[in-house]
């Protein structure tokens, strides 16, 4: 007798008798693919303005998807099909390139693109009808939206941004190779350096302060206090608000004209001065204050969850050994909370790095350009006729966030798997 424990799920899910699909299912799938293909043609989907990389990307996506759907590439017909798709893609790319880098949906290139798309559809159809043993068929069907989003939204759009950052596109996203000219422009742009400086200040201050305040709050909340729920509610409620609301509210409080400065002076302290919002050197610190108000509660909640996850035995052992409380926190609890600390750091730092809404609402980059941030620089350039410049800045942002993320992904996913 096999018990449930001995069942191997992978084998069970892929057992031969479960992989045979009746003809209606297979033809149904084929019809679905045809419908998707028709829609793709109808909308010129996905990237009409992708320029030279459009057919390449479509082919790439198809390769990955069909790998996942287990189309047997050892068969000659499928190999020929894939090679054909790549050749058609390359021809389209060449035509687009030689026509002076104009966008793909111009007459000649457009036809080739449509032929490519048709070919892709026929290929997928054939694969669907003739290749009966899909492994884990329903699971892949269910995951198709995710695959498309990963391929086209996350990978595809990032690649597009990187590629077009080497163009000189202004108002229209047309591709003409311009090398690293945009990066050079970026390097010489004062506004960009101010933005970088500001975001560094913002990341530094808001991460450190949010960690210190969040951790202190979490430690104090963990001392079996009364009304814990009430305190938590108070610290966390700003997190439910929009950055736009937070920004405007703090702009009102910090405005020297009507807010804190005027009111404190009215109360009698006439020399009181708090004009950071209108001070070019200090405006970014106003963003820090408001961001901290909104975000420190999150750090507190995450830390508190981490503290609660620590075994009581640890505390008992430390007490038996006569270690003072602060020492236990510093030498035992904090090292034990390392995974939580790392995850929280990644969340807070990457959130701080993409700070946008709150700056728009609080200072709108002002006074002048003194509190502008990179994401604002990207946005302004993208939608005011400097597309390639905005994309170059976005590429730098992508690079920096990759530098922060790759170690984390390594720790979280690659190393973590070996332990398990």
């Amino acid at each position, binding site marked *: 007798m096999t018990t*449930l424990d001995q069942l191997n*799920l*992978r084998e*069970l*899910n892929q057992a031969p008798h479960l992989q045979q699909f009746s003809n209606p299912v297979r033809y149904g799938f084929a019809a679905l693919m045809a419908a998707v293909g028709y829609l793709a043609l109808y*909308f010129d989907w*996905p*990237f009409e303005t992708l320029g030279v990389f459009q057919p390449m990307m479509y082919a790439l996506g198809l390769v990955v998807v069909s*790998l*996942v759907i287990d189309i047997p590439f050892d068969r000659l017909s499928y190999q020929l099909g894939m090679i054909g798709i790549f050749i058609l893609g390359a021809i389209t790319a060449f035509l687009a390139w030689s026509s002076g880098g104009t966008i793909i949906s111009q007459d000649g290139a457009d036809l080739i693109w449509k032929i490519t798309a048709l070919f892709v559809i026929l290929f997928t159809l054939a694969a669907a009808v003739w290749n009966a043993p899909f*492994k884990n068929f*329903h*699971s*892949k069907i*269910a*995951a198709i*939206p*995710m*695959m498309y*989003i990963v391929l086209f*939204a*996350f*990978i*595809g*759009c*990032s690649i597009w*941004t990187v590629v077009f950052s080497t163009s000189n596109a202004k108002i229209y996203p047309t591709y003409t190779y311009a090398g690293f000219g945009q990066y050079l422009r970026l390097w010489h742009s004062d506004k960009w350096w101010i933005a970088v400086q500001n975001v560094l200040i913002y990341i530094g201050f808001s991460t450190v302060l949010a960690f210190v305040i969040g951790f202190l709050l979490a430690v*104090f909340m963990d001392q079996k206090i009364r009304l814990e729920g009430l*305190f*938590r509610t*108070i*610290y*966390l409620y*700003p997190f*439910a*608000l*929009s*950055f*736009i*609301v937070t920004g405007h*509210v703090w702009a*009102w*409080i910090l405005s020297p004209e009507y807010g804190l400065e*005027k009111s404190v002076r009215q*109360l009698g302290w006439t020399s009181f001065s708090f004009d950071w919002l209108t001070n070019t050197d200090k405006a970014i610190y106003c963003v820090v204050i408001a961001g901290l*108000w909104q975000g420190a509660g999150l750090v507190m*909640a*995450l830390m508190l969850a981490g503290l609660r996850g620590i075994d009581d035995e640890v505390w008992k052992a430390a007490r038996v050994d006569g270690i003072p409380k602060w020492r236990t926190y510093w030498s035992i609890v904090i090292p034990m909370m390392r995974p*939580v600390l790392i*995850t*929280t750091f990644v969340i807070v730092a990457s959130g701080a790095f*993409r700070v*946008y809404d709150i700056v*728009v609402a609080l200072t709108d980059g002002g006074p002048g350009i003194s509190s502008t941030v990179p994401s604002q620089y990207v*946005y302004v350039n*993208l939608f005011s006729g400097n597309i390639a410049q905005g994309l170059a800045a*976005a590429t730098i*942002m992508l690079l920096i*966030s990759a530098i*922060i993320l790759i170690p984390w992904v390594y720790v979280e996913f690659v190393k973590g798997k070996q332990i398990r």
Partner: protein
Amino acid sequence: MSSQSLSIEPSGPKPRKWFEWERVLIYSFLIITALYWLFPLYIVIITSFKDLVTIRDGNIFMPQLHYPIVEVTTDAGTQMVQEHFYDPWVRAWLHVCTGLQCEGISPNFWKSVIITVPSVIISIAVAVTTGYALSNWPFKFSEAFFTVLIVGSFIPYQVMLYPMVLLTKNMGIYSTLYAVIFVHTVFGLPILTLLFRNYFQSLPAELFKAARVDGAGFWRILFQIFLPMSLPIMVVAIILQVTGIWNDFLFGVVFAGPQNYPMPVKLNNIFTSAQGVKEYNVEMAASILTGAVPLFIYFFSGKWFVRGIAAGAVKG
């Protein structure tokens, strides 16, 4: 038996004294920080009930207690009108202008509703099936896809913003409600998939195996076993998405088009497009109205909300 009755030594934790310095320190720190956290809320609420004269001459700490009768000059002539404490709120909801439009923030409230409801439903529906497929029916490269998805969720939106604009333009939905819903579904997928994948993984494996042995397939297990069991995580996901989408500014301003601006975008326009005297009281009332829905959800869901952000943030 008798050993229990024989113990005369005190047992259990040491009883607390009613006054300890440590406790005083803890509570004073907590209370002071709590007051700092409540301060803006207090200021915003009292400001939204003031009139402009009080705002100009008065103190931001003090609420307005008396509402005078003021002279109002209109085309019809001069009238004496009694002010009410709710005037700024009415104005914010129904009359405040941005540019030439003077309809207040109420149309945008409904736009926000129309954006939020389908976005939440679609993104959760996609994420449930994806998370379920990833957790219980792993296929070739499924982990690779998942890793890219999670990494992608940490990339700044600005990187993918412009290609997404082109994508929605080519689908013919740019500057419509569909575009916003589409974009929210795309960018909400990573966090929701993570949430559901981890939840389904935490369910006992025997459940799934038993269903498989009994002959249930992919969809049947999902709909008849996993979905009914996923109510707690569903609540968390709904809270997460409703507040996230309601508070979104960037996608609203880029993808929705001026006729469909959601509330935060409209709010920002109210602040920036004011001409002449800035009506701080009306603006604060509009701010509260914009924040009301997520705050309402937050105050009434309490623990679920905390669990949502903790589950969304920490890989469980």
